[in-house]
C-alpha cells in the first residue's frame, strides 16, 4: 500500500499535465465566448468532484450512525438496496425531464447503492468518521474552486460577477456553506462527541440538497444548461477534454484524500497513546 502512493502520485501528475494540454491546446476555441470558455475544464470537473466527495461524506456519515447498532445497520443496508432498485426501475417507467437518459439515471441509482456497500466493506465503523471528515475537507476545497472560477468566467460572458437570483450558483454556495458549518462544528465540539454530532449534521445537510436543487427547476436560471443530463450540447473534442480533466481531478482528489486520511489516522493514534500515557502518569503519581 505504501508503495502505491508515490506511483499514484506520479500517475496523477502525468494525467493532470495531459489534461492541461487537452484543455488549453487540443480543445477547440468556443465560437462566441472565446478562450474564456476554457475555464470550463476546471470549473465543471471541480464541481463534479466536489459533489462526489460530498456524496461519500453522506454515505460515510449514515454508516457511522447506522452501524453503531446491528439492527439499524441491517435497515440501512435494505434501504440502500431498495433505493438502488427503485431508482433503476423508476428511471425506465417514469417520464424524465428532457435530456436525461433513462439508462444513465438508472445506472446512477445502482452505482450509488454499490458505493454504499463498497464503503461498508472497506471501512470499519470508526473509520467511516475519518472518511467523512476527509471528504468534507477536500470537498469544501474543490467547491471553493468552483465558486471562484465561476465568477471569473461570468464577468466577461454575462457582464456580472454573480447572479444573485440564479439558483444553481446559490445552491452551490449553500452546499459550500453547509459543509463549512460541518467543519466548524467538528472544530468546536468536545472530541468525544464530535463524530456523532457531525454525522447527524451531515445527514441533515445532505437531506437539504434536494430542496435546494428542486428550486433550480422552478426558478428560471441564467446558468448554462447542464452538460450531462440537461439539454445543453457540446463538441465531442470539448467533451473529451472535459472528461480527461475530470479523471485527472478525481485522481488528484483521491490522492489528497488518501494522504489526509493517513494523517488523520496517525493523529488519532498519537492522541490515543498520549491519553494513555497521561493516565499512566496519573495512576503512578497517585501511588
Amino acid at each position, binding site marked *: 500500500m505504501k508503495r502505491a502512493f508515490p506511483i499514484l502520485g506520479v500517475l496523477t501528475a502525468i494525467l493532470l499535465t495531459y489534461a492541461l494540454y487537452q484543455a488549453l491546446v487540443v480543445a477547440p476555441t468556443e465560437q462566441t465566448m472565446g478562450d474564456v470558455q476554457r475555464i470550463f475544464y476546471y470549473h465543471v470537473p471541480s464541481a463534479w468532484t466536489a459533489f462526489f466527495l460530498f456524496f461519500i461524506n453522506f454515505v460515510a456519515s449514515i454508516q457511522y450512525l447506522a452501524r453503531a447498532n446491528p439492527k439499524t445497520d441491517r435497515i440501512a443496508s435494505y434501504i440502500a438496496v431498495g433505493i438502488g432498485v427503485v431508482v433503476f426501475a423508476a428511471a425506465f417507467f417514469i417520464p424524465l425531464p428532457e435530456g436525461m437518459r433513462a439508462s444513465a439515471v438508472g445506472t446512477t441509482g445502482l452505482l450509488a447503492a454499490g458505493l454504499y456497500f463498497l464503503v461498508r466493506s472497506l471501512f470499519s465503523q470508526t473509520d467511516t468518521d475519518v472518511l467523512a471528515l476527509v471528504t468534507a475537507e477536500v470537498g469544501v476545497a474543490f467547491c471553493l474552486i468552483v465558486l471562484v472560477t465561476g465568477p471569473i468566467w461570468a464577468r466577461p460572458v454575462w457582464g456580472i460577477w454573480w447572479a444573485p437570483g440564479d439558483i444553481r450558483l446559490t445552491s452551490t454556495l449553500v452546499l459550500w456553506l453547509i459543509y463549512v*458549518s460541518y467543519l466548524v462544528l467538528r472544530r468546536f465540539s468536545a472530541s468525544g*462527541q464530535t463524530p456523532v454530532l457531525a454525522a447527524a449534521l451531515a445527514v441533515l445537510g445532505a437531506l437539504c440538497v434536494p430542496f435546494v436543487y*428542486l428550486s433550480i427547476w422552478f426558478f428560471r436560471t441564467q446558468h448554462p444548461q447542464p452538460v450531462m443530463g440537461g439539454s445543453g450540447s457540446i463538441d465531442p473534442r470539448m467533451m473529451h477534454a472535459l472528461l480527461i480533466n475530470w479523471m485527472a481531478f478525481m485522481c488528484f482528489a483521491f490522492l489528497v484524500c488518501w494522504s489526509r486520511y493517513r494523517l488523520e489516522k496517525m493523529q488519532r493514534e498519537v492522541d490515543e497513546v498520549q491519553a494513555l500515557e497521561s493516565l499512566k502518569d496519573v495512576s503512578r503519581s497517585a501511588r
Partner: protein
Amino acid sequence: MSAPSGITRATLLKDLRLEWRSKDAINSMLFFSLLVVVVFSFSFDPVAEESRHIAGGLIWVAFLFASVVALNQTWARELRNQVLDAYRVSPAPANSLFLAKAIGNFIFVSVLEVLMTPLFIAFYRLRALGPAWQLLVVAVLGTWALVVNGTFFAAMSIRTRSREIMLPLLLFPISIPAILAMVQATTAILTDENSARFWIVLLVTYDLVFTTSCLLLFETVLNAE
C-alpha cells in the same frame, strides 16, 4: 412510566410556566425584533409599492434572528442543576422531550409573530394584494420549519464551545431553502404577481422531511458521549 404524550405535555407545561413567570425569552425576542423593525424602517423608508417587495424578506429575517434567542435558551435552561443529564438517564423517550421543546418554541415564536405583525403592517404600510389567508399557512409552516431544526441544532450546539455562536452557524445554512420558500411565498402573496402554491408545497415537504429526520436522530444526539 406515563405515556410519551404525557411526558411531552408535562415538559411543555413546565416550559410554558417557566416562561410565563420569567418572560426571559419573549421579552428579549420582542425587543430585538422591534429594534430590527425600527432600524430597517430608518434605513429604507420605502413607499407602499416597494415595501411590498421587500417586506417578506424583512419580516422573516427579523423573526429568524429573534427566534435564535428563544432557541438558545431551550436547552441552556436544562444545563443548570444537571437537568439534562437527569433526562438522559431517565427512561422517558427522547422524542417526547424533543417534541415538547419544539412545540414550546413554536408557541414562543408564534406569540412573537402575532405581536410583531401589526407593527410591521403599520411601519411599512402593508396590504396584501393576493389571498391573505395563505399568509397564515406560510407563517405556520415557516415557523415550524425554523423551530424544528432550531431545537435540534440547539441541542447540538449546547455541546460545543462558544455555543451561542454555534447555533446560527449550524441553523442558517440548512434553513436556507425554507427561508427562501417563506420569503418568496410572502412576497408572492403580498404582491399577487404569481402563485405561492409551489413554495407552500415545498415548505410542507421540508417540514415533513426535517421533522422525521430530527425525530430519528435526536436520541443519538442527546446521548452522544
